[in-house]
């Protein structure tokens, strides 16, 4: 806006009243204008009010009320500026701030620069009381009373301390002592009779209530608990809803949640720091803490959060009933008879036969059960009395004994011993004279016909008279590991694993003949054995068992053991079942009527099985192994073909100690009693009795 126009407008507003109007209005902003005090104070007010709302000049209508009052103030202080209620920025560019009462221009004063005002502020301790009045372009210093007044105003109180906003009501009317009532009219009749209109209204209401047009609020009923489940018995009806799946219960707290858990539960600071590196999902929810006493446990900060998470789980997680096969694993097991019912079986060590100076490799029990022969790697063969443990006889054969076998005929007291590349048939000198005579006859070799009759095997075996021990010596071309008698005691078989096609040979004792088997051998022969009642011969190779009929000279069947390296074989006295022990500690039971695969494979030993045996009369079988344990099993074979054999583990016989990594090298049952002999690498033979 141009200054010329300003000048034109100025006279309009240069009224003598305008000044006070302006001043009052700003004061009225702070408080109600009605209760405002004397004019002298009101004049100084704008200075205080300036900083708060400087632009609201004279717009409030209350300012008009004070125009009369402020008239008197004109005499006391003549305001110099008469510019009136115009925006002051109109004069920003002018050298003057307005006009005095005579119409002369009022010059602007020089303003202190910032530094100057700051210095003034610092010098003068009362500077804070000074307020710049923009209208008059001057600094006004407030008095103490004025400051107080401003403070009261700021607190929204009446500006004057002695002003009472709630004065007692003064009743100016005099009630008593008046001669006449205010109204002398008599009381009207309508005050004494019931109102017709009200009666009408009542009738209306009554009718409305009767018709049910008006209803009343029912009294509030208390819905406290009551007996909700009175009778549970009749609740068998099935609802057609989906099956309700109850929520899984929360995990019960463990030791780590205790307030004083063992130290190993408390994570170290490093572990806690490493939690921070984890993903948030992987981070453990709860970090165990330790408090020495119960009173020092603080409130758990995550209590609310845990509860909330449980709530979320309860209503947001789909519930699925997991179809877990709910079969008691115990019920899946076949019902085994208790061990008590299966007695007798060997349980405890009864006698130890000491005397050998090296590992006892093989033992054999005399058919009557009175004697036991043993061969050891110290180069001796001994005969012990079973019941006393007395060593009856010993032969120094000079070489480590691989196998000893007693002739199964009770009246032929001879012993087959394999040592190195020889097999000795020894006369034990037991029995009466007649028997001895027979034996001597049997053990005499006609030296004139040693080799011609034996055909193609003549080169491999030579029958010689052994004078030193009084028996026969068979010379082989390879190491003989096993000797096995036929049940009639006239034949015996030998196994030479390295003998290739002549690995298994059958020898006829009375004729001093040796025969090669007319079959091809597949694999490395380990053991051989005769059928206990028929003319069937079993050869155990490393991976399979081959069954031959000797009379018909026929191969009958092959049994797949599924083992890596079989080590021993035993045939059940019934003849239809056999067990094979292996070097990986497995025991296979074959039912030959059933299949060529094992009926049961028992993994019982952690180390090589050295021998397996059946008992001749009791339903027992045993295995011995390099882990120094011998296992005794109950192996019942039923005459009913439909019933599978029953195998029950009975006892683990311990007692032998390991030597050079070898444990029990041989085991044999007593022919009549349920006793087990074990021969150990610890130079001992033990007898376990029931």
């Amino acid at each position, binding site marked *: 806006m141009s200054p010329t126009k300003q000048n034109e407008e100025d006279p309009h507003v240069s009224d003598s009243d305008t000044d006070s109007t302006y001043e009052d209005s700003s004061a009225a902003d702070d408080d109600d204008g009605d209760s405002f005090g004397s004019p002298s104070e009101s004049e100084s007010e704008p200075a205080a009010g300036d900083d708060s709302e400087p632009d609201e000049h004279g717009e409030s209508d209350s300012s008009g009320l004070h125009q009369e009052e402020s008239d008197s103030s004109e005499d006391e202080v003549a305001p110099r500026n008469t510019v009136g209620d115009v925006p002051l920025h109109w004069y920003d560019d002018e050298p003057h701030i307005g006009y005095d009462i005579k119409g002369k221009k009022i010059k602007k004063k020089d303003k202190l620069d910032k530094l100057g005002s700051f210095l003034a502020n610092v010098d003068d301790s009362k500077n804070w009381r000074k307020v710049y009045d923009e209208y008059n372009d001057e600094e006004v210093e407030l008095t103490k009373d004025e400051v107080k007044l401003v403070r009261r105003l700021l607190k929204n109180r009446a500006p004057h301390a002695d002003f009472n906003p709630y004065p007692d009501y003064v009743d100016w009317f005099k009630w008593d002592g008046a001669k006449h009532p205010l109204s002398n009219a008599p009381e009207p009749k309508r005050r004494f009779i019931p109102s017709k209109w009200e009666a009408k209204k009542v009738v209306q209401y009554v009718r409305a209530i009767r018709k049910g047009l008006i209803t009343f*609020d029912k009294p*509030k009923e208390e*819905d*406290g*608990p*009551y*007996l*909700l*489940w009175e009778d*549970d018995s009749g*609740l068998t009806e099935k609802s057609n*809803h*989906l099956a*309700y*799946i*109850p*929520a899984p*219960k*929360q995990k*019960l*707290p463990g030791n780590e*949640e*205790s*307030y*004083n858990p063992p130290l190993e539960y408390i994570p170290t600071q490093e572990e806690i720091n490493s939690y921070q590196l984890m993903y948030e999902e992987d981070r453990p929810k*709860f970090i*165990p*803490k330790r*408090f020495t*006493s*119960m*009173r020092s*446990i*603080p*409130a*758990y*900060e*995550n*209590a*609310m*959060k*845990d*509860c*909330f998470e*449980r*709530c*979320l789980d*309860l*209503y*947001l*997680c*789909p*519930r*699925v009933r997991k179809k877990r096969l709910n079969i008691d694993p115990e019920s899946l097991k076949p019902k085994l008879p208790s061990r008590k019912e299966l007695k007798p079986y060997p349980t405890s060590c009864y006698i130890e036969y000491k005397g050998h100076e090296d590992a006892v490799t093989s033992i054999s029990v005399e058919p009557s059960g009175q004697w036991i022969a043993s061969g050891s790697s110290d180069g001796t063969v001994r005969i012990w009395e079973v019941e006393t443990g007395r060593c009856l006889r010993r032969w120094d054969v000079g070489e480590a004994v691989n196998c000893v076998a007693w002739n199964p005929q009770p009246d032929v007291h001879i012993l087959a011993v394999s040592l190195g590349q020889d097999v000795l048939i020894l006369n034990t000198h037991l029995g009466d004279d007649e028997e001895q005579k027979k034996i001597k006859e049997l053990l005499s070799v006609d030296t004139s016909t040693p080799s011609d009759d034996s055909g193609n095997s003549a080169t491999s075996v030579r029958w010689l008279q052994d004078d030193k021990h009084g028996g026969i010596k068979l010379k082989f071309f390879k190491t003989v590991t096993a000797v096995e008698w036929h049940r009639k005691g006239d034949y015996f078989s030998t196994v030479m694993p390295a003998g290739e096609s002549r690995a298994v040979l059958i020898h006829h004792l009375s004729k001093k003949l040796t025969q090669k088997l007319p079959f091809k051998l597949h694999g490395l022969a380990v053991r051989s054995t005769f059928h206990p009642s028929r003319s069937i011969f079993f050869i155990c190779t490393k991976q399979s068992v081959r069954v031959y009929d000797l009379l018909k000279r026929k191969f009958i069947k092959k049994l797949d053991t599924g083992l890596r390296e079989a080590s021993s074989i035993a045939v059940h006295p019934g003849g239809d079942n056999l067990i094979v022990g292996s070097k990986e500690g497995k025991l296979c039971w074959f039912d030959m009527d059933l299949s060529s695969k094992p009926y049961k494979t028992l993994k019982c030993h952690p180390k090589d099985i050295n021998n397996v045996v059946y008992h001749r009369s009791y339903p027992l079988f045993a295995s011995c192994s390099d882990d120094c344990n011998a296992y005794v099993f109950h192996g019942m074979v039923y005459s009913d073909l439909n019933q599978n054999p029953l195998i029950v583990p009975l006892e683990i016989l311990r007692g032998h100690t390991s030597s050079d990594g070898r444990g029990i090298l041989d085991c044999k049952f007593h022919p009549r009693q349920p006793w087990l002999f074990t021969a150990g690498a610890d130079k001992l033979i033990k007898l376990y009795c029931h």
Partner: protein
Amino acid sequence: MVKAVKHYRPPGKKKEGNAAKFVTRSQALKQLQINLPLFRKLCILKGVTPREPKKKFKGTHQTYYHVKDVAFLHHEPLLEIHREIRVHERKIKKAEAKKNLERAKRLREKTPKPKIDRIIRQRYPRFVDALGELDDCLSMVHLFAALPAAESKKIDIECVHKCRRLAHEWQAFISRTHKLRKAFVSVKGIYYQAEVEGQKITWLTPHSLQQVVSDDVDVITMLNFLQLYEPLLGFVNFRLYHSINLKYPPILDPRLEALAADLYALSRYANANVNAIPSVVNSEASQVAESEQGDAKPKRDDIEHEKSELRLAQLQHQLPTNEPGALMQLVEEAASEEEEDQDTRECKNLFKDLKFFLSREVPRESLLFVIPAFGGIVSWEGEGAPFQESDQSITHQIVDRDAQGHKFLSREYVQPQWVFDSVNARIILPTVDYMVGR
């Protein structure tokens, strides 16, 4: 506008398979014509959970509900009530906007209240079902009993008070009938395990300190759960109190209530009432009453006698006519009950002749609950206590601070953990390991 059908389905042929059995959440909302918060609330109250269809036909990120579940919600009267509530709220808002406060107040009073009892009965048709799922309910009620009432968090003081009352009533019942089996003090709080009617109920009570309501918790969801749990516990308490012939809700001694010894007040109430009316099960006066009245012994015999008679009567009542073998079964049941009683009896007699005094620093509430539950008599430091610290017959004083003012030689000073360990082991352990400072 009709959405293009992905696979052509001949007219008249219905949807099949998963698409017919399940709907997504937004579909369900559309069908029910409600908003998500209300849907959530209904799901919480009715116990409807999402399902896992074999084939998620709308994608794996969707939540699926079974059609039958949605129909179940659709027929729920609560749905209608909530609609009415919404209408009411609108009316109240309007009245308030028109400064018609009178009407607003009247409307507010008349706001329909959803009733939960039917739903509880529906969800838990038998009492045993309710007991089986009481774990969460108890934990939550106990938690809310310890919460500060905060206007900003929408937890009002009435709710907190109600939770506290319910929790104390439950504890009083458990304590009086000696059904508490185990207790475990953890950092999170104290776990209790009780066995009621063959159901093992485990719950967690926070330590009696001010809990903090964190901001990352949606209190509204929890309040929805509480809306179910509060009446549930109320009904359960009613039924339990009914079973021991007590009036519910119990009337408490205002003096004790003011002292925040609600639990003790409740047990006092229970005992007083039992003496007035011979009760059915487990109604012998507990140890406190005995010590106060002295002559409870013959009374107990009376009650025992009555108890056995009553059981006989119950047996006869249950006996179905003309059914061979039923008697045998009943006898077996009775035998099994005997076994339970055996357990209870063991718990009851654990602290039988012991008198405890709690020092100021030990957590009073939990010990006031546990010790009477195992047959002990307990008092504490403060007003309204049944006996003072100077009582010479006190056998154990439970302390948790090294400095003791006056040590009585006639009693043992043990840490609170001793009580909990003894309870869990069911024998009174030697106190040597539980001296203060170990």
